[in-house]
């Protein structure tokens, strides 16, 4: 029987890893991911998993080791945050290019410098073009659930691409929340067995992985990788739907709140969605038709679906918990505007960069974004494409 328990995000994700009981985990501790590695170490020490656990000496080696183990035929998981993800960066491209279905919780934390341990999305946004699928979570329940769905997506023969399960450092990773956890049997049945067609340890069918491909073949390899993302959306939807059938918890590419009749909307990623719902309710009480989109899947980009959901709005604010230093706001902003271009939608789309380095974001902060949009729509405020929320200017 599924049961309701109170766990931190890290505990919940470690529990998910325990229930998956992967063949190999290779990991290196980093704040705020550390608990995951610690809990998993206890599972190994107490014989609660039969996983081969490699306590590597760096995140670069963590990713290198799971690339090796995954290619060797083992279901493989690692986890990291921030600098760790940045240190892995080189290997992230190789994992996706080699089509290895690795799953990696990324506990979002600001990248140095200055050094900071708290939440923003600069780490995983920095990895957005590495060919990994990225799922983002609002709370502990989603972090737990997405771990299993991620595995299903990654190992889908149409996809065979690694997946990051991103959730906010401290806000989710360290906060105690109630969630429903499933029976191990239910999980085992859902995730099934990893049975790759080809693997290094198949001595009867040896093969070469990672050859040199120059101008005559490299492009085709990358083109195939690009093609994956066109099919990955189906795999994401199907894996999520199947999980919904098993558990009753349904996940779409994104989630909306009071959006259908909204005039002004914001699109947000991660735990700030909860805060934003409070802001929507507050604005609705004030007579402003506010609505919300919470993005769950950022890679592949749910372009058509998002455009269909937001095109009726009179104004949209894209909330970025990372900057892209392009002189034109954050990464999600640039993408959403690009998605809209040429669709005939002509609503103003503005950007609010917020919450960097764990800067707190409360209901009133998000409400101020809606208030700005409302004024913009009424021609009472100037169009300002990029704004920084809650910062000392």
């Amino acid at each position: 029987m599924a049961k309701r328990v109170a766990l931190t995000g890290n505990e919940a994700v470690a529990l998910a890893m325990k229930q998956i009981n992967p063949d190999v985990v290779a990991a290196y501790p980093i704040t705020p991911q550390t608990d995951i590695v610690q809990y998993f170490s206890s599972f190994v020490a107490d014989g609660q998993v039969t996983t081969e656990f490699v306590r590597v000496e760096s995140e670069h080696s963590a990713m290198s080791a799971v690339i090796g183990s995954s290619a060797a035929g083992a279901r493989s998981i690692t986890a990291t945050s921030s600098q760790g993800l940045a240190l892995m960066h080189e290997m992230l491209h190789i994992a996706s290019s080699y089509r290895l279905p690795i799953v990696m919780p990324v506990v979002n934390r600001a990248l140095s410098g200055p050094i900071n341990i708290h939440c923003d999305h600069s780490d995983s946004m920095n990895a957005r073009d590495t060919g990994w699928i990225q799922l983002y979570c609002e709370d502990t329940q989603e972090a737990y659930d997405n771990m299993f769905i991620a595995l299903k997506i990654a190992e889908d023969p149409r996809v065979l691409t690694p997946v990051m399960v991103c959730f906010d450092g401290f806000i989710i990773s360290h906060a105690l929340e109630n969630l429903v956890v499933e029976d191990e049997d239910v999980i085992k049945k859902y995730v099934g067995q990893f049975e790759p067609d080809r693997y290094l340890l198949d001595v009867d069918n040896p093969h070469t992985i990672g050859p040199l491909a120059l101008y005559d073949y490299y492009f085709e390899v990358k083109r195939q990788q690009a093609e994956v993302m066109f099919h990955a959306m189906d795999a994401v939807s199907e894996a999520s739907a199947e999980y919904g059938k098993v558990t009753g918890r349904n996940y779409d590419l994104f989630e909306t709140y009071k959006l259908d009749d909204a005039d002004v909307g914001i699109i947000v990623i991660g735990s700030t969605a909860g805060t934003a719902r409070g802001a929507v309710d507050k604005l609705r009480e004030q007579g402003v038709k506010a609505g919300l989109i919470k993005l769950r899947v950022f890679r592949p980009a749910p372009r058509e679906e998002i455009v269909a959901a937001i095109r009726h709005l009179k104004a949209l604010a894209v909330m970025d918990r990372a900057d892209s230093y392009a002189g034109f706001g954050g990464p999600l902003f640039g993408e959403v505007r690009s998605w809209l271009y040429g669709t005939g939608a002509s609503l103003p789309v503005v950007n609010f960069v917020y919450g960097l380095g764990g800067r707190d974001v409360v209901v009133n902060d998000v409400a101020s974004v809606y208030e700005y949009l409302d004024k913009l729509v009424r021609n009472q405020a100037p169009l300002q494409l990029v704004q920084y929320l809650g910062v000392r200017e």
Partner: protein
Amino acid sequence: MANLRELSKQPEVLTQGHRLCAGCGHGTIVRQILAASPDPVVIGCATGCLEVATTIYPYTSWSSSWMHTAFENVAAQVSGIEAAYNALRRRDKIEQRQNFVAFAGDGGTYDIGLQALSGAAERGHRMMYVCLDNGAYMNTGIQRSSATPLGADTTTSPAGSVLPGKSEHRKDLTAIMAAHDVAFVAQAAPSHWNDLVTKAQKGFAADGFSFLNVLSPCPRGWRMDTNESIELTRLAVDTCYWPLFEVVEGEWRLTYQPKEKKPLAEWLKRQGRFRHLFTEANQHILDELQAHVDRKWEDLKRRCGI
């Protein structure tokens, strides 16, 4: 002790079609080492000459499973492969014993790969790490590494009018690996094939991490004729620039003692990378190189109880 007749019956793992240079030591060394494995091998290869010359897509020269990912991480990558083997054996998904080998050059080992190597050694994975030490980043055009000897002319330590080649002695990596107290550490050379194969057999048989540092001649980087490579490797051993020894559970043992320790200059003068040292102005560098070899040799003999 290796038996040539038996070795010749071993299936070739590094087969035809590769594009290693004439006179390169890599192919010879790799074939000698892999012939020593009684079980199937899974090979990891760092970025470098061996990797680019043997797997130009859509071709491969390898008849065993082989994987390359990047430059600095082959020890970690093979750690993961060995971990997968342990996991799948435990879960009864595979049965046959397999061996795991990592090949990397001196750049991928002494320099950029040292951290991953040290980590894998400390964790004690059952794998053999082989450094193919040709004393510089030959694949990218002969740049100095921390394996490059003092005075060598490389493209990043060129012999100029002020600086006569590389300013530093090479790093003693074999000793560093011995200090990791792993199952088996050895230094070898392809000129002494029996010694090399025997060491590889010991490495494969070891229940843990083994490290082989093998001198690999490079005609391009050393600037010598391609037919001299094995001869020059032998001279490196006989001058005690590259002594052959092994370390098992803290016990150092010399596996070959030259009948007559030849002057280092005999080895140096046959390589273009040292040609500029043979002038009056640079005599002190030759002296320093000889003194360094003498000190290291005495040090090694002391460790070996000789």
